[in-house]
């Protein structure tokens, strides 16, 4: 209960009208708020009385101040007893309309007489002038505030001096519950545990007021991780626990690492397995010449028992700057660098592919990819890795291996898992890197390469059917996520 509510409660005795409460120094707006809260809590009962009242109009206010036109007419006339009408109008400071209305009314009531264009006050008029009329008294009362209509005042209404108004008056009384609460309130209790309360031991003398601990409190929002990043982090920690090392690399990549080093031919549809964004300016970067030479040879003539693609390799094309379209580029960089054998590597990183944004497509998304390399690794080990991913990361016991195609692996395989409510879904792809990929790097042991469709997994887990939610710009939605 707020302090305001408590103040109002303490004031209540029997049934009280709202004016009474206002007189006790509570502001209008505060009172409204307190009454509606208290009423909703069942502490008070509010009786609403609808009344028709009358109040002064602007004209009425003016007349209260300056006097009614008929009074002014008479008092101007009274000084001389008899005058011509024009002079009366001038002396009484009346406009033409007021003057003629007042004259008509006074004549009718017999307070003046008109003879030969002269106006004369009668005795009745003199008497009326001396005393406050019923109308005047009523108007004076109305000056303090609206009142109920009085009989015989209809003319004031007609003359537009007063106007009708409908008002709702509230009368407030405590309910049984309210009375109990007020009893408590009147006791001297500790509201807040202040430093003084603690230091002086006030709790020994006074009771600490109980709160309604079930009452609602206003919502607040605290620091919280982005749900998709949390998920990626869980996957990352899992892979680290499985002995994988994290790889990193640039978003603006050379065509060399993204495609050529992965034996994706420059003139072949296999290159267009997905589309790539090209950088506008600068167009070209630098590639290690010796490595470039070896990769060019693998493409043109083949290495390690391969006949190669048999086309004219363009080194210029290899130096073209693009946006990384697959994280296998990071694996290629790792294999060409200080790679550990045996070794396990992974990357969770952003890739870009030209696409129009809709429920199922984004031009940028995160990919989880990696490699496992070591003496004696074989296809059964590749399937073993995929089985582990299916069980540990995708959380499914039912999965199968489908045939697949990736330009840089042979054999290639796809992991398909059964997810309840979704059926069979593609979870990832894998394969053993082709010798044409590994030989130019001087790697002679088998390299198992794998990638997981991580977005899909997250979407299934969070029951999201719109991929744009992964990078949600909806703070309201983000605040609702677990």
């Amino acid at each position, binding site marked *: 209960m707020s302090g305001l509510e408590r103040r109002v409660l303490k004031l209540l005795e029997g049934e009280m009208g709202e004016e009474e409460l206002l007189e006790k120094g509570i502001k209008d707006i505060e009172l409204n708020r307190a009454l509606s809260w208290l009423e909703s809590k069942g502490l008070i009962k509010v009786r609403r009385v609808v009344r028709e009242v009358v109040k002064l109009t602007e004209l009425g206010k003016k007349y209260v101040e300056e006097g009614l036109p008929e009074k002014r007419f008479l008092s101007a006339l009274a000084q001389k007893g008899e005058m011509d009408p024009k002079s009366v109008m001038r002396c009484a400071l009346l406009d033409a309309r007021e003057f003629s209305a007042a004259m008509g009314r006074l004549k009718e009531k017999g307070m003046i007489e008109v003879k030969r264009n002269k106006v004369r006050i009668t005795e009745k008029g003199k008497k009326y002038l001396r005393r406050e009329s019923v109308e005047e008294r009523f108007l004076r009362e109305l000056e303090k505030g609206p009142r109920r209509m009085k009989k015989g005042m209809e003319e004031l209404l007609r003359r537009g001096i007063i106007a009708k108004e409908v008002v709702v008056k509230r009368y407030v009384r405590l309910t049984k519950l309210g009375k109990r609460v007020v009893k408590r309130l009147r006791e001297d209790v500790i509201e807040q545990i202040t430093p003084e309360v603690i230091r002086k031991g006030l709790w020994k003398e006074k009771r600490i007021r109980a709160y309604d601990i079930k009452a609602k409190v206003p919502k607040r929002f605290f620091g*919280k991780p982005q749900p998709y990043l949390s998920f990626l982090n869980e996957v990352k920690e899992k892979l680290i626990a499985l002995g994988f090392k994290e790889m990193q690399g640039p978003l603006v990549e050379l065509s060399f690492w993204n495609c050529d080093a992965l034996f994706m031919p420059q003139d072949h549809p296999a290159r267009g397995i997905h589309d790539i964004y090209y950088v506008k300016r600068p167009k070209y970067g630098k590639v290690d010449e010796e490595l470039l030479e070896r990769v060019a040879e693998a493409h043109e003539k*083949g290495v390690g028992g391969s006949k190669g693609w048999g086309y004219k390799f363009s080194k210029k094309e290899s130096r073209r700057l693009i946006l990384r379209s697959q994280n296998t580029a990071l694996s290629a960089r790792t294999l060409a660098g200080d790679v550990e054998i045996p070794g396990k590597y992974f990357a969770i990183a952003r890739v870009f592919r030209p696409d129009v*944004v809709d429920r199922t497509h984004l031009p940028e998304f995160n990919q989880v990819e990696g490699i496992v390399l070591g003496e004696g690794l074989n*296809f059964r080990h590749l399937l073993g890795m995929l089985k582990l991913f299916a069980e540990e990361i995708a959380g499914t016991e039912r999965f199968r291996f489908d045939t697949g195609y990736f330009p840089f692996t*042979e054999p290639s395989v796809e992991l398909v898992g059964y997810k309840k409510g979704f059926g069979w879904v593609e979870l990832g792809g894998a394969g053993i890197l082709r010798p044409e990929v590994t030989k130019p790097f001087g790697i002679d042991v088998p390299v198992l390469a794998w990638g997981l469709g991580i977005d899909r997994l997250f979407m299934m887990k969070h029951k999201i059917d719109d991929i744009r939610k992964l990078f949600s710009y909806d703070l309201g939605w983000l605040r609702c996520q677990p």
Partner: protein
Amino acid sequence: MPTITISKRDLEKLVGREINDLEGLLGYLKAEVKGRKGDEVEVELKDTNRPDLFSLEGIARGLRNLMGVRKRFVFGKEPVLEVRVKKVGVRPYIAAAVIKKVKLSDSSIRSLMRLQEVLDRTVGRNRERTSIGLYNYDLLTPPLRYELGDPNSSFVPLGSKKRMTLKEILREHPKGVEYGHLIKGSYPILRDKRKILSFPPIINSNDLGRITTRTKNVLVEVTGTDLKWVERVLKIVSLSVLEWGRELHPVRILYRGKERTTPDLSQEEVTLDLLELERLSGFEIRDVEKHLRRMGYEVTKKGGRFVRVRVPTYRTDVMHPVDVMEDVLISYGYNRIEPEMPKLPTTGWKDGLTDKFREIGLGMGLEEVQTFIMNSKSFLEDFEVLEVENPMSSSKDCLRSWIYPCHLEFLSMNTHVPYPQKIFEVGEVVQGVKTRRHLCVTLAPSDFTEAKQMLNHVADRLRFEYELVPEGFPWLVEGRCGKIVVGKKEIGVIGEVHPEKLNELGIFNPVSLFEIDIDSLKRFYERIRTV
């Protein structure tokens, strides 16, 4: 990955057997059923390196091998036709073949049209590299000539009734408008003694270049800019047409000074080392020869450690013995192989820098967001950004160089959501061509003091000292912003957002922010890192 539509009835007709488990069988060919509608099956071909499978006919051939069904064809040795090639600079190569005794139905013609279309689009690179034409062989008057024609010579284009000149076709015919740019102002034509057969790569003639259910013998022709691909595509198309016929006959192509006979149906031989196969697969496979035959290979020599196989002529993807080995494993069945976990003594490791700054951001009670790295140049016009050459839309045509404009975009989309909105992000930006990781903290409503308090907290956590140097930044209030300098290096920006920008974005709350390059703080992180 191409997706094609095939008729199951036609497939069974070509295979010669009833097919029950189509999904399962297609798996061996790296193909997947995507949908069905009556007799029509939609098939996705995952192996982009196997254009020989991009058709009903190619799939039928693969399934026959798998099911052990044999079908005999006659391959003629001597060329039955000659094509004389005069200098056709812009599109210099042609290859052709004749298929005899064909029996075509409306649906098989439709299938061949689909094959033509998918090959033109994929390996043909929208007809630039190769394009295909089919003709009624019986209507031709040899010899054929492939040459540059007179732009004013005319014929009736396929599907039309009106005779048009080559020039008119370029200008008025839909195909001329679509593909006209490929011929760069010259007019290659294929003609016989009397008439024009086609205007490659644009359109065939309506009388000679039209295949109907009454056509008995077919001429297949491929023109293009790359000899290797022209001949490969011819091989694929002529073998597919042959599926509906009995005999395949070669054609002699006479270039100036040299001649070639197409199609070249020779087969390469590959030696398979069974020990290597066992090393790759991780177990011993019995009946390797059976598996090889199922995948279409011919075994020419066997016994001992080595098996010699002949690769089917239509396979252009076999470059290394591993390609054959994969086929053996596919035939054996991936799901019959027992997975084994590799046991390698490796230890995990992570960079940790990103995690550290996420932890600090969350510790300050901020709400984490993730915004796109791609954005639009028009939104980021006040910043230097890296543009892409081939955007799909103007809303995604560049990479951001700072995160904070993206955060203001974020706030502008959430003005109806309760405040305070205090957000942070650890994300990547591209400055020049270099990728950098940034931490950005954006606070609304807030002021400079709060931003600086948080920056101080970050500096305390990482144990670095910084200096603020007043300097203007886009969208920030001059005099209330500056760069953050550590040592001599500029590592970020702090400031209050200009009310003009806030007004423009519809954010009616004061916003302060700071953004730092965390990659440049790596050495401080390494000093406090415990593991």
